[in-house]
């Protein structure tokens, strides 16, 4: 690495050097401290919720019963988003890295970045004002024809504000991050592998399947997990769009939907007091832990494969 060679050629240290080095080290340490601070402050403000009496937690007996349906809803929405977003993102990434001519590819890349730049509250406006109403006929059709599948048991939501709509909105929101990472990895596929496949008479898709995808496998996994992390924590779009009742159900198209941790915080925080507010902070801590684990795992996957990827 570059950094290692810098250290070996360091000149002799002076006072300014000592001060500056310590300054930078302090800044680095500050990041570690702030991350620990997040955990500490959330715990200290959330702690009273664990001893909460029945009746103080939106009708639940204890904190665990309170947070469990929220965790379920959070994960369900994020998984729907991921199932929709990953194939799309892979398609877009391949289009940019291997299919589109260079100039068009750059343009596509910029447009996808625009998707990432749209603030989440605007996605919420769009979801509630445009997407939801457009999906109502589809939900009614699913309810009528595929109602025997538990996922589409219905009755179909009359407003389109379902967890499935939320999943679609979230999918659009995580698409840019998954696309950005996978296209980066796809374009790093060793040229020799690709040319070898083509020389053997492979079609373009076979070349992609035999050289590009296997090379990028760990990258795809970690990109998907990073997308998952983003979807888990998304707040405003969910709070605006979802008709949330806090139940546990796999019924994707009815108006009775599970809520998510983040949306529940945004909706309940302003009008809550005392233990209820502590419970919201504690549920935020749970969300922090979940996203931390997901991101930790994703980065660990990347880190494991990193040395092999670098030239």
């Amino acid at each position, binding site marked *: 690495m570059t950094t290692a060679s810098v250290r070996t050629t360091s000149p002799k240290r002076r006072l300014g050097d000592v001060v500056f080095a310590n300054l930078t080290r302090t800044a680095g340490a500050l990041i570690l401290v702030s991350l620990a601070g997040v955990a500490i402050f959330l715990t200290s403000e959330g702690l009273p919720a664990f001893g909460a009496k029945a009746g103080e937690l939106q*009708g639940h007996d204890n904190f665990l019963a309170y947070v469990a349906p929220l965790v379920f809803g959070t994960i369900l929405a994020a998984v729907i988003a991921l199932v929709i977003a990953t194939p799309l993102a892979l398609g877009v990434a391949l289009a940019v890295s291997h299919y589109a001519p260079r100039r068009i590819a750059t343009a596509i890349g910029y447009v996808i970045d625009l998707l990432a730049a749209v603030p989440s509250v605007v996605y919420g406006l769009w979801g509630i004002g445009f997407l939801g109403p457009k999906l109502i006929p589809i939900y009614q059709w699913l309810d009528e024809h595929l109602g025997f599948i538990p996922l589409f048991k219905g009755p179909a939501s009359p*407003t389109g504000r379902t967890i499935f709509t939320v999943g679609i909105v979230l999918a659009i929101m995580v698409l840019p991050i998954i696309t950005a990472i996978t296209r980066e990895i796809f374009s790093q596929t060793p040229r020799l592998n690709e040319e070898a496949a083509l020389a053997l008479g492979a079609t373009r898709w076979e070349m992609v399947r035999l050289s590009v995808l296997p090379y990028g496998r760990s990258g795809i996994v970690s990109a998907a997990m990073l997308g998952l992390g983003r979807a888990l924590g998304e707040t405003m779009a969910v709070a605006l769009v979802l*008709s949330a*009742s806090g139940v546990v159900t796999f019924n994707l198209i009815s*108006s009775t939907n599970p809520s998510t941790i983040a949306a529940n915080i945004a909706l*309940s925080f*302003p*009008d809550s*007091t005392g233990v209820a507010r502590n419970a919201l902070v504690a549920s935020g801590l749970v969300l922090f832990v979940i996203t931390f684990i997901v991101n930790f795992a994703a980065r660990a996957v990347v880190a494991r494969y990193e040395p092999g990827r670098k030239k």
Partner: protein
Amino acid sequence: MNRTALRRVAAPGIAALALGLAVSACGASNENGGGSSSDSKLSGTLKGAGSSAQEAAMDAWRAGFQTDNSKVTVNYDPAGSGAGVEQFNAGAIDFAGSDSALDAEKGEVDAAKQRCGGVNALEVPNYVSPIAVVYNLQGVDKLQLSPATLGKIFSGEIKKWNDPAIAAENDGVTLPGDAIAPVHRSDESGTTKNFTDYLEKASGGSWKFPADKVWPIKSGEAAAQTSGMVAAVKAGKGSIGYADESQATDLQQASIKVGDAYVAPSAEGAAKALEASPVDDSRTEGDLAVKVDRTTTEPGAYPLMLTSYVIACPTYDAAKADLVKGFLSYVVSTDGQSKAADNAGSAPLPSSLQQKAAEIIDGIKAK
């Protein structure tokens, strides 16, 4: 080189700052307090927070009071009743708006006493607004429901619009066989608390849940805020919900059974119901908490309404006392109440309550 580096780092920041200053230099066009006509001696800033139901009325009061007293700024943060009481008790704000009276069991009364330097806090009703039962049924322009039927509808016991229980109360109305889709608020709200309180007390047992800010049943369409509720009912065929009457004017509204008659939601009806309700006499003097009588049989009364309070201290620092007194006097005055009625569609306080409230506020003095 060193300077250049710093300058380069600073450049975007300075640019942003400059932009901010440029925009701010002229100030907001509508905030230049040019009230030369005002000869009020009052000046300073008041801070309030709490009930979001009061927001529209509070806007009217603040605008009216600030126009009369150009050197005064009144801020009101519609953060929610709970947040308002909490901030008031912590001493962060001068007055609070709350959709429910201070709760002695939760220690709110004591906390408020402590915040006011050992004297009991003042609490007067300042905002009364009917809650309408809104529905969406094509061709059914008039719907009458008793509280018992309402309780069954909202707890999911009655599932179809042409249920015999509904039909019995609506002679001559052709009810469709559509499924009923009850809509409730997904956020914590005073409207939900008052609606569930009404159902609990008036439904005669068909509604089995205690009054709460959070909707107790985990099914049905849920919508955030009054606007979400209105939008959901408007969009969903066969749906029924509850919303502040003033914000639900373009929806079909049901009449509810009071005594032997059916009463449509109206500001006057709400005021009548409040007048017919006793003041909680377990409270201290200066605490005008009303025990709303949900089962009143007073003709024309509409007991499904939200009563909101303003909470303040009896004594303030010399600088604040006149301000608080001036503003709150205006709020409960005839002028203030009619301003709120115009802007928020609320009911003017019944005169007996208004008089008592004015007397209590008149007692605010400097320490």
